[in-house]
């Protein structure tokens, strides 16, 4: 599994998270609200997974392993979850 609940309050995303993970992720979030998502080992996540992260506003533990996620996606989530205008970080190529 690329998404799993590790200690009852942390969901871990690992490797390439396929579209199916979106449903699993959402189910876990609904089951245990306030859960933290640790995506430090996440290389890539399908748009549907990112969408769940965006919609839920769940706290994140990062940065993720994948360059595009780290440079382009994480700032969006941080901005939304923490209300910080951290984006954009500069013009580096992904």
């Amino acid at each position, binding site marked *: 599994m690329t998404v799993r609940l590790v200690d009852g309050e942390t969901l871990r995303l690992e490797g390439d998270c*396929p*579209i*199916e993970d*979106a*449903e699993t*992720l*959402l189910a876990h*979030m*609904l089951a245990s609200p306030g859960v933290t998502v640790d995506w430090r080992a996440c290389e*890539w996540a*399908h*748009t*549907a997974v*990112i*969408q*769940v992260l*965006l*919609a*839920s506003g769940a706290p994140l533990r990062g940065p993720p392993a994948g360059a*595009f996620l780290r440079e*382009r*996606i994480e700032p*969006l989530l941080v901005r939304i979850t923490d209300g910080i205008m951290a*984006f*954009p970080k*500069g*013009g580096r*190529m*992904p």
Partner: protein
Amino acid sequence: MNEFMEQFLIESRELVEGATGDFLALEETPGDRERLDSVFRAVHTLKGAAGIMDFDAMGRALHAVEDVLSAVRAGASPVTSRLVDDGLHALDRVTAWLDVMEATGEPPPDAGAAADAIVARFAAPSAVEPPPRDPPPGEPSGAWLDGLLARHPAQAGAARLALRYAPDPGCFFGGDDPLSLVAGLPGILAVEVEPATPWPALDLLDPFACNLVIRVLLQAGEEEIAGLLEPARGQVEIRALRRPGSGPALPAPLRELLEAQILLLAEPTAEGAAGRIASAGRVAANVLRHAGCASEADALDRATTESLTTGNPARLTAAIAHARDGMPPPGADRSAEAPAAPVPDPEPWPGARMPQEIGARALRVDAERIDALVTLAGELTVAKNALAHAVGLAREGTDPAALAVLLRDQHAGLDRLVGELQRAVLNIRVLPLGHVFNRFPRLVREISAGLGKSVRLVVEGEATEADKAVVEALFEPLLHGVRNALDHGIEPASERRALGKAAVATIRLRAAREGEGVLVEVEDDGRGIDAAAIRAVAAGRGLLPPHVLAALTDEQAIDLAFAPGFSTAAAVTDLSGRGVGMDAVRRAVERMGGRVGIESRPGRGATLRMTLPFTLMLTRVMTVEAGGQVFGIPLDTVVETLRLPRDRIVPVGAGRAFVLRDRTVPLVSLAEALGGAADEADRPETSVVIVNLCGQPGGLAVERLGLQMEVMLKPVDGLLADVPAIAGTTLLGDGRVLIVLDVQELLE
């Protein structure tokens, strides 16, 4: 039809074929300079040929295509898939015209309207710039761009393109991963992802409905992202950006050119107004493109179209004047960069033709091969003269024994020459398999688009040669094979991704010489063939009794896919799956004297493998007599011959059968099958030819078995063409006509 016209048709068809291949290759690699030059040359030559034939409409249409290609060559506009589509459609139209010319000897009288449609299509800026076809709803057009630039002031300066990508809510089901598409774009400066509609409560969120809008600032130019956004066609709005005030002022000579166009338009005569508008618009647009102002040029093109439609040059004059003064064209601010009104088509574009009959109408033969024939003709004349000498000797009463020696030598010489002649003539008919392979890139492109699968076609060994008849007869079985691979073999992109396979599937068409024959393969990297599913279907259809099915190896079970009326597809699609495909493949290949089989690698793909004879011309036949007449049976269908005592023949139902090596073999009287009377009743033994019918033995009762010989089979044509069961005819040594039977057809 005069020779001139004939030549025009031959060359034009070749050029169309070449240009089609180039367009398809350009779609794959938009930066391929060689292909671009090649397609430009082909279109240019076609245009010239049309001019020579006084076929004005074709010339006009191709001129429009040439103009756009020329802009692409100059780097002023990118190769887009829209351009490829339009180019292919234009070539289809040209082919339709050529067909009419071939049939009637005249250019089609109604070509003007179709040519105008092509001209309009290519004059519209959409031909070179992918337009936002359906501007994504939700935000007023243009407003998002200002917001995006304002939020990223640091990046806005370097940005050349801005994208607004609103994926379809259901796009995930199509296997799309919009962010993955975005991540693949070059030169990303900034990315924004926001909900398209406000997020619902988490427990009401549908994780598989895409509710996102993605906005991107790119450093890359349009030509760099050409094709990359193809999967999101219709969902992306692309805006080219140019920093205000940084536009280069036009050099003086170019300004003068623009001035000249305004003067041209100002001429008062109504006569030829349309021509002047078109010409002035084109020159002005080219000037702007030359100066690197592609978007202004496109705006000008729109003004040209508008002026042409209204017949009033005012709009164009104003646009040129604005361009000359370095101002944005009137009404061509951002909000007007929305697509121009579509130019109405006087008639629908012709679809890609699915040619059923692809006979090459003319053969291009290597001069060397003709030279070899001329040499042979000379040697044959020498041999003929030598024969005349022998005739003279015979008349003079030369010793028969000496004469026999002389004649034998001459016969040997003639034998060699005739053999060489035969080979040389067959060589003329040799074509590279590329002739048939070339049709597939286009077909695969269209079929895969229809199925929503992305597929890459790889062609290998297209230079492998075979007889024209073999190459031409290959189209149908190859088409079935490719359709089957696309339809049944290749998984949808989402499934492929889940399996860890490349999302873009690969189909390979491969040809190679193999001994005396030619090996042709269709290979896909799809799911392979499920032997268990085939067994289940075969059992369901009652093709074979259950215990026989159970005893089959997986390979034998897969071979059942070739059985008539077999299909594993649950649903009948409009492509294959009617359960006739593989049956038709086997029929077509076996008719050519070839063999066909499938190799399946479960989960990794399947290969349809056809082994074909190099030539269809020489056939080994065996002669038999039935109903008092001699017939030939192709030797490759004959398994063995035997004499069968009458008492071993037993009636089975309405037919007869006998037991051969513990197997029951049905027996058919050839004379009866041909509509005559069975007449072997009074003899104690019957001669039987055991033939192979789709892997099953069958017995043909004949009156007498004859010789084996190698014959040049002439296909039957004219009135006899529709007579079933005749494979062809040939002349026997004594002048009689030998009819060679198609046993398969005969016994059905």
